């Protein structure tokens, strides 16, 4: 049973070229930090999950349902991945976002509250496994 004051936030990570100016050793160290950060959030129940996104992109648009590759947006604007948070409010979500190890390397983190009630969240609440 969730405590009623918890709400869900999506952290949207933008920027796919954060490692451009780093050496292999530095990349390795940075990834270790990422992993520890994520694992910590999951362990204390504040993060429900998350994933990186691959580069392979299709865009479906318009009445004609056109399918195109791309758009190949600027690397710093491309969504790189997301975390799902369940926290006390926007302040806590923002505080977590501020710990993002990619921030010094040009990444940005968008903090988006999930709408309180929609069909998907009801499904998720009744069956937590559906999220995992």
């Amino acid at each position, binding site marked *: 049973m969730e405590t009623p004051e918890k709400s869900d936030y999506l952290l949207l*990570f933008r920027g*796919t*070229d954060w*490692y*451009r*100016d*780093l*050496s*292999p*050793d*530095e*990349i*390795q160290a940075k*990834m*270790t930090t*990422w*992993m*520890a950060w*994520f*694992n910590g959030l*999951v*362990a204390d129940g504040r*993060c*429900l*999950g*998350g*994933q*990186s*996104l*691959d*580069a392979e992109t299709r865009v479906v648009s318009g009445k004609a349902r056109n399918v195109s*590759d791309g758009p*190949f947006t600027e*690397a710093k604007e*491309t969504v*790189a*991945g997301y*975390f799902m948070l369940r926290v006390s409010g926007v302040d806590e979500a923002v505080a977590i976002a501020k710990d*993002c190890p*990619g921030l010094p390397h040009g990444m940005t983190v968008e903090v988006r509250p999930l709408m309180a009630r929609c069909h998907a969240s009801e499904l998720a609440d009744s069956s937590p496994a559906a999220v*995992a």
Partner: protein
Amino acid sequence: MSAPPPESPALAAAEVPRLTEHLFRHEAGRLVSMLTGIFGIDRLQLAEDVVQEAMVRALQTWPYDGVPRNPAAWLMQTAKHLALDVVRRERRFHEKEPAVIVAMEQRLADPGASAAPFFDDEIADDRLRLIFACCHPVLTPEAQTALALKTLCGFSPGEIATAFLATEAAIAKRLTRAKQTLQEQRVAFEIPSGAELATRLDGVRQVLYLLFNEGYKASGGDSLVRGELCREAIRLTALLAAHPVADEPATHALFALMLLNAARLPARTDDSGNLLRLAEQDRSTWDHRLIASGLHHLQLAATGDALSEYHLQAGIAACHCTAPDYASTDWPTILAHYDQWLRLTDSPVVALNRAVALAKVAGPEAGIRAVEAIRHRPPLDAYYLTFAVLGEFEAQRHCLPAATAHFQRARELAELPSEQNFLAKKLRGLAPS
């Protein structure tokens, strides 16, 4: 393109796997060489980019899928596919050089190639080509060392800046300009041949020597980074020495001098970072594996009749390494090496070092006369060691006021705290009690 780490809570315990130290750094040089062999030196940036991306992917997926049995092959395969993606996308946007791209796709997609990406010989050739490109004379020496560290050793601009006491922005600019120059001058990705080979090999050895010295010299910079520079210079020189094209006496001499000096690195400072002189060093902490390897390469260097400065420096280092204690150092041989070295170079600093050896053989007065003859030549006129050496000689012949004056002058000129502490200790030792 990729991003932060994954994924589902069930796997939350996964961590970045423990890997061989510097696996990625060392693979990076190999991978960049191979990809440059495929895409050309003017696509060096592409090679570097996809290699980094492959590494990020490895770090994202290995914690979950396990480390592949052959991590190097996995990285190569991934980097190749990423490079192909980029090239295909370029073709889509620019429709340029379709024939070239088709040929590349064939070479990259060859199923035989995916099992064993390249033969070792081929890798060694590509690495040597990249070494020659990075050490190309169209680049300034500073650009050559920076580019070698970036592309061959997997250093970031930030790490290079720490090593060279420069700003990261300056290093980044230097690297960009170097790659531009290689492109504009249409530098070939090849192992030079004929008469050109000899001069170009000299150039390569010079860069590796600079790289090693940058790490070896005690002045400034982070000591960990400097140790890394020495190790990287040794790694690249090992590649050079193992390649039939570069397997020459001078290469082995350079390799020997690096090994014989690196062997004594850990003993050179005490626990608080103060410099220890040879006489004060604990010889049991010298790396005897490196010494043995250095002596082996010194032997390989002793063929033919070409005598290089590397030979003489390695010979001097060998004398120190093989002396069981300071008192039994073979100074006459060391002096003979310095004499020969001075016939090859006009360096006042070498002459100053020779004076130290001379004083060991012929007494402090001979040393003083030798220094007096050269002390007005820059950079010796304002070099702290000139005065430290003179102070030492005067102290040896018990002229304490003269010794004190020289050590004081040396302390004024010394820039590093470790040097200043050392001289302060000397001065305290001379003070009447």
